[in-house]
């Protein structure tokens, strides 16, 4: 979605006149001036397309019965509402226990938004609210989400939830409210500050170290090296969505 440009011509000319009269003018060509914007602290550069955020989950290290990642997610993102019907509760991340009935081998793993390169939720969204950032993080723009839930149907990973009740206990950095669809954001508010997602941190604190977060495009990053060395699986790889969350050991 392009940003609406509602700067009026009058406003632009006025600003240009003020800029030319003041000091903040840089000449880029004779008669053509670029107005320099002075700011106390420069804003960040924003998401770069050179980065592809991803996660590697080692199911051999993930402990059945441990829900440290889910708790950390709920705390970080302020998911604290109690619904009459628990089936309607928001699940940004959930724990799944798998067992092969024949061999009896069991796996436990967290499942969340897989941050696809080609996300079906973005394809189907009628308003452009479902979107992918340049660095591969798939988000819902709640300002444009109309709550139609088409993306919930389209997602092969059941990763999205709909907020069913009025909320007042949000975290300032994680706005969320009734009538919008939501899902894992890779803790975008932390990632933009150079931190790792809350679930990954909690998994390390619980001494399981089953989750690894990093830039899949950076060949020196721990996650890119692990993905290059060990066999990892994309869930539903047949859909060719090229997901950002990889699993090891399943």
């Amino acid at each position, binding site marked *: *979605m392009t*940003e609406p440009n*509602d700067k009026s011509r009058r406003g632009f000319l006025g600003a240009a006149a003020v800029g030319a009269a003041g000091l903040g003018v840089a000449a880029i060509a004779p008669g053509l001036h670029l107005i320099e914007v002075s*700011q*106390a*602290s*420069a*804003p*960040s*550069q*924003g*998401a770069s397309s050179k980065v592809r955020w991803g996660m590697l989950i080692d199911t051999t290290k993930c402990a059945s019965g441990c*829900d440290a990642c*889910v*708790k*950390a*997610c*709920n*705390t*970080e*993102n*302020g*998911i*604290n*509402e*109690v619904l009459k019907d628990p089936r309607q509760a928001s699940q940004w991340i*959930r724990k799944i226990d798998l067992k092969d009935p024949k061999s009896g081998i069991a796996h436990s793993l967290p499942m969340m938004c897989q941050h696809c390169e080609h996300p079906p939720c973005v394809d189907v969204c009628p308003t452009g609210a479902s*979107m992918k*950032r*340049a*660095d591969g993080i798939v*988000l819902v*723009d*709640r*300002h444009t989400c109309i709550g139609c839930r088409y993306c919930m149907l389209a997602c092969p990973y059941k990763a999205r939830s709909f907020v069913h009740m*009025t*909320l007042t*206990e*949000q*975290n*300032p*950095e994680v*706005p*969320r*409210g*009734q*009538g*919008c669809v939501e899902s894992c954001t890779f803790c*975008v508010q932390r990632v*933009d*500050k150079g931190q790792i997602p809350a679930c990954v941190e909690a998994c390390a604190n619980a001494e399981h170290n089953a989750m690894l977060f990093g830039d899949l495009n950076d060949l020196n990053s721990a996650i890119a090296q692990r993905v290059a060395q060990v066999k990892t699986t994309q869930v539903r790889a047949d859909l060719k969505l090229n997901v950002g969350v990889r699993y090891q050991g399943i």
Partner: protein
Amino acid sequence: MVRLLALMAFLIMGAVASLAAHAAGVPKPVIKIENPGQCIAATEDMRVNHMNMLGHQRDRSLRQGIRGEKANLNGCINCHASKTTGSVIGKDGFCESCHTYTAVKVDCWQCHQPKAGYKAAGIKP
């Protein structure tokens, strides 16, 4: 004739009374600056343009990941939240008092937290 005059007098008195009430007007909004200091722009500019500043910033912040811009809702809240309620909404809240006066409904608080420095607790899954 007398009855007609009486009726006219009654009507005029009614009109005068309603004009007087109108002159007093609805209560003016309470604009309390609890942390006096430098806002990101002049008051006149903020009054006219704050919605445009926030509207453009929110798209850049969410869609492009540009953080730390001058205009941002949490920045507004951190400075303008009431010291008694900790919030920018409520009866004399910085946002709500003006928006009630001008009858402009904002939906920000359906998702955004109006209290400065609020820490939400997660629940046990």
